[in-house]
């Protein structure tokens, strides 16, 4: 019985070719799930009797919001692993994930605004969820600008890791504070919490697109981590 070497792919040297082999598969699967999900979203899911066709943006909006939070958690996980095990690849992964996470956060806010206009009559409300999603975008921007400002790569990785972990500790507190703030001010006249029960086909479309987004994020992170390896450790990339 041979022991599995869990750290085999934690070196950029062996991860570079693996990432290269995985990218097309993830991209292909993402396209497959994406097309199926969009088909369900546009042709199978029934028209909402209250919101008409405009609700269909939910199929992009909700998976994007899920991914925005999930990617931050994964990023903080890599950051923590990088600080604990002092592995080079962890910091690279955290930095490779951040732009995708920020993109999905922006996408969630943008589609939310587009959805809010026809249904609520306003582009933006200071609802607790919207506000905390906006703050999440600020946290991503903080991470991206800190890592971009530090020239030494190792220092940038580790400083970013500390910031990502501080952010993760703060996210529940921020969310809780925003919910409290919102209920105290009674600002939003529209609540997202009283959403009607969803039809199964709607849920199916959302899940399919969530899987597609997830696979896309993996592919994007792999591509980006390959670029980072090529930039920092040209020799690891050259042997591929």
């Amino acid at each position, binding site marked *: 019985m041979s022991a599995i070497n869990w750290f085999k792919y934690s070196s950029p040297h062996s991860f570079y070719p693996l990432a290269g082999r995985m990218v097309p598969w993830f991209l292909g699967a993402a396209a497959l799930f994406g097309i199926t999900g969009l088909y369900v979203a546009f042709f199978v899911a029934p028209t909402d009797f209250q919101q008409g066709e405009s609700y269909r943006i939910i199929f992009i909006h909700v998976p994007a919001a899920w991914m925005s939070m999930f990617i931050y958690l994964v990023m903080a996980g890599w950051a923590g692993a990088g600080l604990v095990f002092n592995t080079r690849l962890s910091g690279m992964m955290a930095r490779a994930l951040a732009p995708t996470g920020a993109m999905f956060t922006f996408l969630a806010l943008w589609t939310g605004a587009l959805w809010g206009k026809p249904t609520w009559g306003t582009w933006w409300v200071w609802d607790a969820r919207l506000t905390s999603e906006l*703050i999440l975008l*600020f*946290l991503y*921007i*903080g991470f991206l*600008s*800190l890592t971009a*400002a*530090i020239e030494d790569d190792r*220092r940038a990785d*580790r*400083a970013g890791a*500390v*910031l990502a972990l*501080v*952010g993760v*500790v*703060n996210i529940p*507190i*921020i969310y*809780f*504070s*925003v919910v*409290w*703030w919102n209920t*105290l*001010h009674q600002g939003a006249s529209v609540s997202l919490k009283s959403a009607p029960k969803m039809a199964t086909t709607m849920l199916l479309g959302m899940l399919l697109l969530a899987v597609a987004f997830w696979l896309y994020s993996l592919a994007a992170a792999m591509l980006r981590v390959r670029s980072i390896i090529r930039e920092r450790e040209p020799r690891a990339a050259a042997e591929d």
Partner: protein
Amino acid sequence: MSLWTLIVQRDLRIAWRRRSDALSSLFFFIIVVSLFPLGVGPEPGTLRLMASGVLWVAALLATLLSLGRLFAADHLDGTLEQMLLAEEPLWLVVAAKVCAHWLTSGLPLVLLSPLMGLQFGLQAEEIAVLTGALLLGTPVLSLIGAIGAALTVGLRAGSVLLALLVLPLYIPVLVFGAAASGAHASGLAVTPHFSILGALLLASIALAPWTAALALRISME
């Protein structure tokens, strides 16, 4: 304990010799607060409504302005490296420096806030709530800010970056601090807000010096 008093004394002495630094962030606070009535209009009702929010945001910005000084001078003259090499735990050094920072930047804001409250036509009790909340909240601002200051030590775009990193993390303090005044205005109990501010203070006392020390080691390696 002697290390603690030593560092606090040293930082206070330095701050006293460079009084203009601390004074300018204090005047920044006063000017920002005074700009709001000019921008919004002198309507007493509106001003009273927004007083606590304005004072809190101004306190956040003023703290941010002074945070750059927390490690910068020590970094430039090499003292920070000696502190990293010292036998004493680094988090204790950081905690002492944060304490001195609060005494020179946070405490003056707290002491000045009743006066600024009068500018906005607040009543005595409202002023007491606002000042109490600031007393509990401003140390948290210094503590969380120390993490950001440690991460950005010696960077070119340090001060702008510091704002990007730290301001989102300040949101809970802002929300609960300003909400204490809001609760008082609508006749609710303020104690829950003070309890949460106290909890935030205790949690950041426990975690922030340690995290800032880790960040300093990363920045200085």
